[in-house]
């Protein structure tokens, strides 16, 4: 088949147009768009919403019973300082961190009852061991691993050390200065390493959150919109309209038109969701100032750079194109919509795999510089997820990112060829069960 380029483009656009308009008019599409806008804006404004809800409260109350342990430091004051100190790895804005309010009390039983009914978060009781050391007991509804428990435990250690120093004859000094956390920076050991990555704990935390969110968005787009393409193919096959269209357009044109049409709609939905969400994110300080009083500025959240957004955009378009094309090819092999999920399952699994490795690497469960992550970040099916994560964490250089994008872009024609081949033989096959053998036969057919 050698249709002119003009005819090819015209047919791709005609198919894409129908796909775009028809799908865009469905109630499902409108409903999901509205839902996603609500969720997106809600997530973006979550900190403001939480502050709004918490505006009356003065933080979690922790009650302390010193009893007759007579520690060398003023435990409620020290605990208050330690618990509300900035924590590495978490946002440090005093207004957004959960603040603790430490109060001294005497009645253990009454305080325990308050923990049970929820009006107090935890109760810390001090005592002395026979060796004269301070001993702590925490009454809480949380688990041992909860954030509050761990913070109180760290604070208790500091208090115990100060207590021991005092008993050893070293006089107590200014407590605020004593418990202030030191400066603590983490730098790459290799002086030549990429340095545009996050340097401090705070930066790390916000970049981590951003790349985590971006890879979730990418993952959702590929699965959700890829399935739209697959269902659209199966639908045409099911209604037998395929043959009419195939008399007028080549399988390649039909398939490309579908991917462009659904992709365009996906992009529209994305923009419709992202613009208000991003606006909410950027203006959240203003919104907070309006709702809660005070003044606020306008700023991009930390960790989002123009470069990261451009790469995300590229990975979004290319990653979607790759998966969508293969989804279309696979779906052309089955004749019933019920079989679609089964035949596209291998692709979905690959996609889930890429996403999981990326989020494990992002959270540090897999070291970000492990060979697995580095190698996968260049392989087309995984690179959209992993290169984005590596870039977000600053461990990928511009050259590496460019190579991954080039490889991904270069692989798309291969996928197109493969899918068009599947499509050509698949669209006229009816009554086949979706097995690997069907796939193999379709690939080998003329």
């Amino acid at each position, binding site marked *: 088949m050698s249709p002119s380029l003009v*005819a090819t483009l015209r047919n791709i656009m*005609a198919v894409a147009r129908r796909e775009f308009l028809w799908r865009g008019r469905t109630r499902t599409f409108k409903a999901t768009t509205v839902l996603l806008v609500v969720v997106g804006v809600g997530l973006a404004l979550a900190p403001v919403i939480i502050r709004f809800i918490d505006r009356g409260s003065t933080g979690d109350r922790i009650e302390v019973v010193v009893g007759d342990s007579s520690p060398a430091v003023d435990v409620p004051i020290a605990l208050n300082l330690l618990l509300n100190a900035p924590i590495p790895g978490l946002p440090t804005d005093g207004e957004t961190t959960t603040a603790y309010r430490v109060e001294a009390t005497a009645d253990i039983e009454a305080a325990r009852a308050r923990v049970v009914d929820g009006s107090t978060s935890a109760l810390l009781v001090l005592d002395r061991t026979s060796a004269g050391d301070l001993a702590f007991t925490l009454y809480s509804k949380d688990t041992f691993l909860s954030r509050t428990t761990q913070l109180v435990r760290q604070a208790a250690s500091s208090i115990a050390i100060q207590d021991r120093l005092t008993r050893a004859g070293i006089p107590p000094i200014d407590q605020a200065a004593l418990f202030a956390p030191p400066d603590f920076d983490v730098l790459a050991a290799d002086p030549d390493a990429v340095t545009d990555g996050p340097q401090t704990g705070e930066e790390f935390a916000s970049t981590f959150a951003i790349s985590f969110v971006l890879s979730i968005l990418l993952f959702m787009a590929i699965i959700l919109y890829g399935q739209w393409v697959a269902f659209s193919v199966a639908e045409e096959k099911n209604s037998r*309209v395929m*043959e*009419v*269209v*195939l*008399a007028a357009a080549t399988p390649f044109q039909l398939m490309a038109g579908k991917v462009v049409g659904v992709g365009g709609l996906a992009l529209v939905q994305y923009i419709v969701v992202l613009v208000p969400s991003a606006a909410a994110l950027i203006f959240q300080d203003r919104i907070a100032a309006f709702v809660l009083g005070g003044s606020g500025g306008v700023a991009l959240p930390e960790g989002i750079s123009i470069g990261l957004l451009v790469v995300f955009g590229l990975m979004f378009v290319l990653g979607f194109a790759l998966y969508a094309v293969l989804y279309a090819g696979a779906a052309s092999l089955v004749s019933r919509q019920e079989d679609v999920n089964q035949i596209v399952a291998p692709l979905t699994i690959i996609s889930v795999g890429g996403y999981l490795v990326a989020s494990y690497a992002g959270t540090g469960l897999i070291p970000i510089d492990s060979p697995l992550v580095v190698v996968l970040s260049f392989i087309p099916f995984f690179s959209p997820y992993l290169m984005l994560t590596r870039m977000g964490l600053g461990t990928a250089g511009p050259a590496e990112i460019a190579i991954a994008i080039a490889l991904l872009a270069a692989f798309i024609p291969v996928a197109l060829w493969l899918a068009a081949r599947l499509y050509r033989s698949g669209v*006229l096959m009816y009554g086949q069960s979706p097995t690997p053998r069907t796939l193999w*036969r379709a690939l080998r057919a003329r």
Partner: protein
Amino acid sequence: MSLVLDSLVKRFGQITALDGISFEVEQGQVFGFLGANGAGKTTTMRIVLDILRPDSGTVTWNGTPTTDVPRRTWGYLPEERGLYPRLEVLEQLVFFASLYAIPRRDAAARARDWLARFRIPEYEKRRAEELSKGNQQKVQLIAAMLHEPDVLIMDEPFVGLDPVNVALLKEAFGEMRKRGKTLVFSTHQMEMVEELCEAVALIDRGRLVLGGPILDVKRSSGRQVVRLGVEGDTELPWLADLEGVSIVRSGEDYTELDVRGRDPQDILGAALARGERVTQFLIADPSIEQIFIERVGRPPSEDQHLASAGAAGGRGGDGVAAAAGSAEAAR
């Protein structure tokens, strides 16, 4: 100027669907494409339209391979009708036309025109799934014709249409033909073939059984059908003495005879020689239906037996009537 199919072979796994099909359709012809179910008609049509590729063989239109012929040359009505179930009729038609580079406004105007001619203008805004099967078929036909293709290829265009719509479709066929369009269609309704087609191709199990202008096809069978009526005699036992003559059917006022290898006039001569009073004598070519059944329906060896010819039944008789009509028209 013609559509030429040359030695098409197509296999699906172990099954050979087409085994060297060759025939030619002249431009401007109405061409009947016949064959039993599963003979390979749909596969052949799909290959002509380049929806399927043959394992070997070529299809050319005016000398150009079908793969290089512009798509808008063809209009196709597939056997399995298909429309977008939830798309409005007009939108559907405009979409199909847009694949052939027809501007949207132009396509909409033409579509409305056709809907009116097929007497369903009120369904313009309806979704395809709301239409009855016959009306869906009409929409499907319009979709195949809207871009004014040079060649219309239709798989069973008459199936599912009521007599009024069949007449409308025939009318449309006539108009297309006047405009020099080539029409190729398959059908199991042989009276349609007799009535409409100038030439036919008959395929069986992937092979061409016979093909060419309809009169040649009829004559190629080497036999003729004679209808003889004799006053006061419905049995005509003396016919048994004539070699090459067999009784197909005995009726009230005439007997239908199958004549091969001799001049049908001999029968009239023999009747007159016996002094019979002849009330009817008609010579006709066998109907396409008879040829179809003869060539495809059963092994040739059964053909000689009167009993099995009788078992082929009343359908054969109707065929003769139609055949007689067309033979007369041809003279």
